[in-house]
């Protein structure tokens, strides 16, 4: 049985094909302004990449912010449930998930079957999300993919105290003006995200092992900052960004 999971987030759209409980293929594209089109495009991409025929797919679940605009999906399920299912697939021992996505960060505690026991999500503010990092990357004129490696070289992380993305950006700009090194500013940004997300996760109470999912997990600097702030070691799968889509495809099998 082949099933598909589509995860249309605010920044990227992801797709995963699962066959009989095994991951068959994945695809990622930039969402752009129209989440419906992004859903169609990432669907096309995974079909052509995998060679699977549309008619072979027996179930489709959509997740992410654009989940309700994916008309070809049989059902829409929230990212919370899908990330838990996806993380459980990647490592069945995992009991907590931290997902930092484009517009949301969340902490999830789950049972041994990968079922969500409780979750917490960020407040309305964009601070502590992937969007926050994108804004900072622009201000610093650094490729976001270099953030992780650059921050590891920091000798004295800068202090970013603002809770608001806009104010934090102006703080960063004034640090640049003062001649602060980029690597230290980036490390400071990661510390600030780490503090925010750790406070939210602390309220929920994380149970180890903890896995970080979502696109931001590719940033080693954020992972290290989170480990420091939560006092827990955090594992990251190579499939971190695809966790939601994989979870959606797995849930589609059960429907």
């Amino acid at each position, binding site marked *: 049985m082949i099933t598909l999971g589509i995860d249309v987030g605010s920044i990227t759209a992801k797709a995963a094909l699962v066959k009989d409980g095994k991951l068959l293929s994945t695809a990622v594209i930039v969402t752009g302004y129209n989440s419906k089109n992004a859903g169609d495009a990432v669907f096309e991409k995974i079909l052509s990449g995998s060679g699977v025929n549309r008619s072979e797919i027996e179930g489709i679940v959509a997740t992410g912010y654009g989940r309700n605009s994916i008309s070809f999906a049989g059902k829409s*399920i*929230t990212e*919370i449930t899908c990330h838990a299912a996806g993380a459980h697939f990647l490592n069945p021992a995992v009991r907590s998930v931290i997902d930092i996505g484009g517009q949301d960060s969340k902490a999830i505690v789950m049972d041994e079957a990968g079922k969500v026991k*409780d*979750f917490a*999500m960020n407040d309305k503010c964009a601070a502590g999300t992937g969007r926050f990092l994108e804004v900072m990357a622009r201000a610093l004129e650094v490729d976001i993919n270099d953030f992780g490696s650059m921050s590891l070289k920091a000798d004295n992380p800068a202090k970013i105290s603002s809770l608001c993305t806009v104010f934090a950006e102006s703080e960063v700009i004034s640090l640049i003006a003062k001649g602060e090194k980029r690597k230290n500013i980036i490390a400071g940004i990661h510390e600030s995200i780490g503090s925010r997300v750790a406070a939210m996760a602390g309220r929920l109470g994380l149970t180890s092992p903890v896995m970080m999912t979502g696109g931001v997990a590719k940033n080693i600097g954020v992972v290290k900052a989170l480990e420091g702030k939560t006092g827990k070691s955090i594992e990251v799968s190579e499939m971190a960004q695809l966790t939601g889509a994989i979870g959606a495809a797995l849930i589609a099998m059960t429907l």
Partner: protein
Amino acid sequence: MTTDGQTPDPEKEKRKIKSVKKMKEIMTNYYIEAKTAEQTGKKVAWITSGGPVEPLIVMDIIPVYPENHGAMIGASKMGVGLCEKSEQMGYSRDLCSYARADIACAPVNGGPIGGLPRPDMLVCCNNICGTVLKWYEVQARYFNVPLFILDTPFCHTEFSDEARKYVRKQVDEYIQFLEMVCRKKCDFDRMAEVGKLSVRGQRLWQEVLDTAAHKPAPLSAFDAFFHLALIVTLRGTQTVIDYYTGLLEEMKERIASGISAVPNEKYRLLWDNLPVWYKTKWLSEKFAAHDACLVADTYTSAWCGSLKYIDENDFLGTMAEGYSRIYLNIGVDEMAETVIEMVDKYDADGVVMHSNRSCKPYSFGQYDIQRIVQEKRKIPTLIIEADMVDERSFSESQIETRIDAFMEVLKAR
């Protein structure tokens, strides 16, 4: 479902509460009477929602509630415009949106009913929050009218004798204040009568709310948000008793004929905090789509929650305690106890808490209450962040995800 927008859906029609029509009539007449008070020679007092209204009824003063007006502004989606206006006037965006909307409304007669009638006096009781003190001072200066402040000490764990004497003394001063403004004596026999009517009204309101303990619930919290207006505004009058008697009758009939607020009620939830007035329809449909009914809430029950402290045969003597020990003027432990009692009474499967940017005293202890409820009743709770009137504090897609995820957790249990 209706397709042409003409034929009413019989299924939906069946679920509609018939009393709504009568309620709208009463509220319309009430506002007409208040807005024409100047012509009819009646005095108007603006009063806080938790304030003791009974002495006003006795003195034949029309009570007007800026907070009820705030709810109307929110429900008619006029909140943002008025909040922005108040911000232009120099008020902080962090201030309560009822206060901002009301302060902005006064100079322009804005809002859905063209502003509230000019007050002859203001009565402010701080049992609901501290913001009302400054808010009412602002309005007293603006309208140049006398302001009476009734100070109810916060009841951390108990209501001491000193507190009782302190508030009781102010009740006397309150009546003297009204006598002075109205230039007439208070009729204490009538006071006793109005006190009895107030208690009867509150009991009936509690009975109406209690019908939701039935499975499936004949009314939801969203219905209660609407029907609440009378116990707030006209408490102490026969009108309230007549209306709630009819409403209670209708609820019993709905139970007898199996009419529920939500078509396929499977999940029963408790709501905490004020409604999100501009999104009640959206929220109600959102939960109903998940077969969930908000069967009760801490907000509408606050107008009958302190009945146990009031002796109907000594209203004046016991109202000090009744008005001091309301839900927003007690410690977090007692609030959590109240929530747990409601979870048990209405057999709720989960709790949805609105962290209301406007209402600090209501939202302040929510994380603790959430933790206590989860520990003691092991049921899921959800906190959504919004504001009762200011739509700028509402993010639909984020709240939708939280509610959907919460319902997925509930369904998977």
